């Protein structure tokens, strides 16, 4: 396998390990040196780094893309070689973001532990919940990693993800994941149905013309989903004729709903999405150029 990237190397080789260590040491050294400079210089360095990394994506967006590029293609000219280089850099950037995102989770775990250990130490009135949380975290970690380890070390030909090959660790992981976590997730989600009912009962009042129109259209859209109502109504209106046309079919809940959704709902959502998208564009532009003024700083 030909490797042409400085940061790769043959598997398990000394050169690869050296590059991994360098990849840790160099950014750490950069990080500590940035901390030692003045805040003004630090701001400039951060803004420059921000501009450069964001600029890669901007340049990638502006530069013409290779068309129908196949894996074995090579660039024929300067334009294509720059396009190839930019498009090759995007998956690398995505991988880096994936790895950084995974590491950042550790920060969140630290926050959870620091708050709840503090609560337990101070004997806060909710400390039993904190104890339950920490025990759950360790149980899930233990059985999750034990399951993974046993999967890796399984005898040849044995796929530990299949239920017929499970041992105690797999059953424990399955109980904690499917039996406890997933059911609690589902229970929390099902609360929404009850909350929708109470919110709808409390809030949906015909106090104005707009509210009346809103409720009427909402009623039609709901009735479209209810087969027990929509089907008899369809059969009722199907009998209406206008010449040779089934004129009545225009008045089924399905067709009226399609009209409402395609004409009013979709266009309104598109309008809001345009506004939100332009707002996000402006915000991203200000962040990229480091001209965003936050009220907190």
């Amino acid at each position, binding site marked *: 396998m030909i490797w042409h990237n400085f940061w790769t190397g043959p598997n398990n080789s000394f050169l690869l390990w050296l590059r991994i260590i360098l990849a840790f040491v160099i950014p750490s050294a950069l990080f500590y040196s940035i901390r030692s400079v003045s805040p003004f210089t630090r701001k400039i360095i951060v803004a420059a780094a921000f501009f450069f990394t964001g600029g890669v994506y901007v340049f990638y967006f502006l530069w013409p893309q290779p068309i*129908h*590029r*196949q*894996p074995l293609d090579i660039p024929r000219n300067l334009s294509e070689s720059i396009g190839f280089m930019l*498009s*090759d850099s*995007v*998956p*690398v950037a*995505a*991988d880096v*973001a*994936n790895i950084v*995102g995974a590491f950042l989770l550790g920060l969140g775990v630290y926050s959870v532990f620091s708050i709840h250990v503090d609560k337990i130490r101070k004997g806060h009135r909710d400390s039993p919940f904190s104890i339950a949380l920490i025990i759950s975290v360790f149980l899930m970690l233990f059985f999750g990693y034990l399951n993974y380890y046993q999967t*890796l070390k*399984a005898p*040849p030909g*044995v*796929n*530990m*993800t*299949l*239920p017929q090959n499970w041992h105690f660790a797999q059953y424990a992981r*399955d109980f904690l*994941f*499917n039996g406890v976590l*997933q*059911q609690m*997730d*589902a229970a*929390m*989600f*099902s609360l929404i*149905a*009850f909350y*929708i*009912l*109470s919110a*709808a*009962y409390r809030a*949906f*009042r*015909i106090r104005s013309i707009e509210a009346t129109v809103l409720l009427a259209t909402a009623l039609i859209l*709901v009735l479209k*989903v*209810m*087969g*027990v109502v929509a*089907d008899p109504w*369809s059969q009722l209106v199907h009998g209406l004729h206008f010449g040779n046309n089934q004129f009545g079919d225009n008045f*089924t809940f*399905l067709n009226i709903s*399609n009209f409402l*959704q*395609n004409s009013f*709902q*979709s266009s309104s*959502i*598109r309008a809001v*999405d345009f506004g939100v998208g332009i707002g996000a564009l402006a915000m991203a532009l200000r962040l990229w150029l480091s001209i965003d003024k936050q009220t907190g700083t």
Partner: protein
Amino acid sequence: MAINPKPNRSIGEVLQSLPRQWLYTILLIVSTVPLFIQVLIPNKPEDSSIDFYQNLMKIPDGSVVLLSSDWTNSTRGESRGEFDAIVKILMRKHIKFVVYSIADPQAPQVARDEMNYLNGLQIQAHLPTYQPWTDWVNGGYFPNGDGTANAMSISLRKAFGGKKDIAPNGQLEDIFLSPVLANVQTIQDVKALIDVTASATATTYVQKLGQKMMLLFAVTGVMGPEALPYYSSGQVSGVTIGIKGVYDLETMMQDGVNLPDATGKVAVSSNHVVGSIGNFPGMSNLGQGSQYYPALNASLAVFILAIVVGNIGMFMVKKEKSRTQ
């Protein structure tokens, strides 16, 4: 000790302020009872579901598709039924797929568990199971969804590079060594991307992959309005929404579209389709959609009733106030 008597409330005031607990109890009973009673409610599939089914059936047998499984058991009421129906169709057409997630780290494990369940159903029906590695692989979770979708549009091999799944020898191997992805070089070699999602991943795929491949979305009821503009503009080839969408798929799997049965009767007719779309006769097509659809109808009836009761109460109170004034 003087006790202030509770002021007598009018009927209108009572109707406007029913206790939450009553409403929740009524909803609990009404939504639970239909689960125990098998009722087949007549159904006319929506155009977006018909397009979803039609385009899925048009994928040539033996192709490869990407199945973005961005749901967990919190939305299993809708997403699980969608996933089951889609995978049943893929199994019956011998379409290989890569299941992965860009939304939730739990999702790949949930998909794996669901595949085990569906294979269990296959065994019960004395049908061949869908083998992991040979027929489908698990691509895992990608924390950076936007970047991953971007990378997929440029190079599928690089986007999924380094992802491993368990091979028949029990060891973790590169998924591109599996029979599923061995002949896949670029995104054009994949016939469709099917996204079963409860979040905004649909928007991400439209932005990054909308012009490169066919997109089919199976979304929850809440995300339906967000996906429909992309369907009506032609950027997405089909959308199935919520429990109704699941029931639509099951209905079409059972009866086809514009397809006469043995007696010549057409169970599901639609002007939206030119010609007819096939079905899967003699197979177990009905599932979660048909189970939950009656409960959905009953729950929606309770919602409508609650809103009507609240508004009647409001009008009664208004009338009393105008009478006293």
